[in-house]
């Protein structure tokens, strides 16, 4: 089935950052040989050469029960509906019984080639999409999936009483008539037309090149939700306990916050699942390894901070994929003009000098950071278009790889010299150069990591101090960088991270009109490229690639931020599991997973 592992609203950054903790990295230095190839390849090749698909050649058994570990240090919230859920654990549970109606290829683009509940057709040069629900797709209560179910999903999200976070999506907002519907002026969305039971069309205000990667793909069971007013839907039992989907497994029982029992859905359109049932339970990160060795869970995401390159499990295997996220160092260059809703790059800071920013970039030893602090599971980042977007990431751009000599050279050429003999350079005007660095707390490595970068900068003669001499907690961190537009003017550098979702368009993070453009970076060339990448002309992937190539290069030449690390996530799978893959764009799904032994392998 549509292996659309669309992790739209993926990860809580908090989680990502706590995964950062590392205890063994530094100690393993001796035994752990450099497993990365050259610098250049390492950004696109998995550093540890983990497979993406489980290897198991044994004969499969009939049925069986798979135990799945949901790795989380707190109970799951249990909002089991795509329109309303918030936390990543809930999304993980949802993906077992409720799936996107479209299929996705390896570029995370909607595709009719992949087995899926609905096919689509673009009309009017991409301004309109026709969605055709396939026959034989049933909800778990036996009712067929209808066009109105897909339409209802948009009606929920756009509704004035809706309090979830999904309306913030540019494509959803660009549906014709959506704004009027959202304002409560009309009762229906004029751009969504239901042609018959199985067919509908959606019209957009303008063609969007991100449509196929970003269109909301989930349907809501209207016959099931229908009699609950949308205002009360969020707290209704129908999205917490009595939940249905049309995925390969259906929910049989939920113990709030701790476990879920799924059983095979006989009428699944992709064929009856091979497993009889799946038991999902929450497992604390501190116990995952033990549970896996013990065989009490078959599949679980493995906490990267517990990964030890020297550790070779006997009863399970590691798979890995790249996360759609990146870490970066940002430069605060301006302020947010709240009245005109636009960034203004007018801060009086030596960072306005591109040479200084470049020197800061070349001074950072990200390879060592990835290896020592993240056990090799993070690799130096090259561009802001992450390799996750295979067709847009430009592997030829080297980015800021570690080169302290080059950094010193750039500083010297630009006139930065140590005139007072304190070991740090002064600005070309002869003023003392002193920058502050804001970094987030979380995990054991956060502080040593920040100090490591500060030492890196010190090595090339740039004086950087931690902002207020300490790390800052998640929420205050984002207050300081300006989540509401009131940036703290005393911050010069900060370390942040973004989840990218599946849409490559960086407009919402780097345009001058974007509040989340925390550097408050303003550059006409940048605006032009971002507009072009999102224009109708960019419907042509070749052209879009060209634009994004130029943009990636511009972000290196005149950087608002320096990307530092790309991340890998590990999944551990017991050796009795067959046909499990993290690969995208295949017809493999949960219904194809089988077991080759009644009892799990133990260590």
């Amino acid at each position, binding site marked *: 089935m549509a292996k659309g592992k669309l992790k739209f*609203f*993926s990860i*809580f*950054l*908090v989680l990502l950052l706590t995964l950062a903790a590392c205890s063994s990295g530094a100690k393993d230095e001796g035994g752990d040989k450099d497993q990365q190839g050259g610098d250049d390849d390492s950004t696109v090749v998995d550093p540890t050469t983990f497979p993406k698909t489980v290897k198991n050649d044994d004969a499969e058994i009939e049925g069986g029960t798979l135990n799945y570990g949901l790795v989380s240090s*707190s*109970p799951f*919230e*249990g*909002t089991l509906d795509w329109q*309303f859920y*918030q*936390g990543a654990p809930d999304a993980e549970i949802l993906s077992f019984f409720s799936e996107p109606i479209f299929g996705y290829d390896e570029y995370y683009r909607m595709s009719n080639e992949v087995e899926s509940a609905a096919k689509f057709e673009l009309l009017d040069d991409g301004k309109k999409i026709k969605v055709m629900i396939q026959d034989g797709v049933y909800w778990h209560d036996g009712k067929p999936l209808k066009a109105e179910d897909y339409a209802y999903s948009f009606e929920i999200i756009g509704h004035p009483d809706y*309090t979830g*976070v*999904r*309306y*913030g*999506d*540019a494509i959803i907002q660009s549906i014709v008539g959506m704004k009027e519907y959202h304002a409560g002026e009309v009762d229906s969305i004029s751009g969504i037309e239901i042609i018959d039971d199985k067919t509908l069309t959606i019209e957009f205000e303008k063609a969007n090149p991100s449509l196929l990667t*970003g269109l909301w793909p989930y349907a809501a069971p209207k016959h099931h939700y229908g009699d609950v007013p949308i205002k009360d839907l*969020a*707290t209704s039992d129908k*999205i*917490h306990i009595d939940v249905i989907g049309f995925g390969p497994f259906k929910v049989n*029982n*939920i*113990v*709030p*916050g*701790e*476990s*879920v*029992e799924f059983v095979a859905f006989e009428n699944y359109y992709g064929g009856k699942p091979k497993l009889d049932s799946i*038991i999902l*339970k*929450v*497992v*604390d990160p*501190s*116990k995952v390894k*033990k549970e896996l060795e013990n065989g*009490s869970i078959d599949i679980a995401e493995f906490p990267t901070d517990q990964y030890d390159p020297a550790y070779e499990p006997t009863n399970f295997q590691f798979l890995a994929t790249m996360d759609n996220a990146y870490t970066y160092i940002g430069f605060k260059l301006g302020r947010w003009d709240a009245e005109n809703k636009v960034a203004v790059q007018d801060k009086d800071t030596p960072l306005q000098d591109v040479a200084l920013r470049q020197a800061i970039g070349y001074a950072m030893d990200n390879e060592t950071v990835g290896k020592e602090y993240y056990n090799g599971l993070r690799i130096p980042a090259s561009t802001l278009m992450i390799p996750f977007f295979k067709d847009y990431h430009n592997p030829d751009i080297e980015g800021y790889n570690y080169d302290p000599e080059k950094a010193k050279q750039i500083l010297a050429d630009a006139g930065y010299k140590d005139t007072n003999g304190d070991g740090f350079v002064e600005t070309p005007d002869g003023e003392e150069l002193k920058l502050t660095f804001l970094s987030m707390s979380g995990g054991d490595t956060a502080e040593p990591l920040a100090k490591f970068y500060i030492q890196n900068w010190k090595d090339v003669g740039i004086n950087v101090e931690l902002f207020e001499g300490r790390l800052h*907690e*998640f*929420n*205050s961190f*984002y*207050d300081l960088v300006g*989540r509401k537009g009131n940036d703290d003017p005393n911050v010069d550098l900060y370390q942040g*991270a*973004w*989840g990218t*979702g599946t*849409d490559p368009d960086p407009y*919402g*993070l780097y345009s001058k009109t*974007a*509040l*989340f453009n925390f550097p408050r970076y303003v550059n006409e060339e940048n605006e032009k490229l971002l507009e072009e990448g999102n224009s109708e002309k960019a419907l042509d992937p070749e052209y879009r690639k060209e634009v994004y190539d130029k943009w990636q290069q511009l972000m290196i030449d005149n950087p608002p931020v320096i990307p530092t690390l790309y991340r890998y996530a590990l999944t551990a799978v017991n050796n009795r599991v067959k046909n499990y893959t993290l690969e995208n764009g295949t017809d493999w799904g949960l219904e194809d997973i089988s077991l080759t032994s009644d009892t799990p392998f133990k260590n």
Partner: protein
Amino acid sequence: MLKFIVRRLLIMIPQLLLLSIIIFLLAKAMPGDALTGQMVANPNLDPETMEELREKLGLNDPWHEQYIRWIGNLLQGDFGISYVHNVKISDLLGNRMANTFLLGLLTLIFAYLIAIPLGIIAGRYPDSWMDKLIVGYNFVSYAIPLFVFALLMLFLFGYTLNWFPTGGSVDVQVERGTWDWYLSKLHHLILPSISAALLSTVGTIQYLRSEIIDTKLKDFVKTAKAKGTPERKVYTRHIFRNSLLPVAAFLGYDIVFILGGSIFIEQIFNYPGLGQLFVSSISQRDFSVVNILVMLFGFLSILGTLLSDIILSIVDPRIRID
């Protein structure tokens, strides 16, 4: 006695009101809100929509308006809605409280079952090898952090011996309400509650031990012995009851302990309870839940002291309150 209880209950009202204002202001002073976490996690969420949601949720109103709205609803029994969990807080609390209560109660029972006999033995035979053993256990249990000990117990009895389940409060495959379901619940409860109980006996054992040693030297004990009362009777009738006073004084506070939940135990055993809920609500800025929980804990503490006073007056007739 009744007058005393009523008076204490009445004082509770201004106390709780003050608490509610303080906690509300402190919560508002924390940076961020329930939507901040979504900003990074959800790349499709634009700032305008976030602002619109804040407006809809009333997060942009001045604090006193929000406070009055909140306290008004609270007085009418409406606890509000958890934004993060998307459920009514009363439902959420009901669920978690039942778990926490069971765990706390069993922990308390185990703790007293272990502590009282040990305290009596140690007090009755001070400086014997048994006493040394018990005091040794006391030092060790006082020194070991709960999260280390609970993991050790889990490793030993959960993973190595496979006697107990390693997480959760009940087996998801067992049908709710059946006999097996209750058994499964008990089975899941034993390991976490014993782990917690073994480390929470220090106070009780120490108090009991020193009280017994003290009481043994009191005049009325000497009198009883001089009258020829059998040694066993002296201990059960005369010494034990008097030595229980300080222990009984703490019983009221244990009510708070039962419902307060233990973050470490709940996290290590993946046991969804109030302690976990409190911590995760703070870090996710789910203010409505945080406020209600603080009010609940505040209420329980005040109730706990009251109960302690009442219990004390029952155990020790010399204490008369009115």
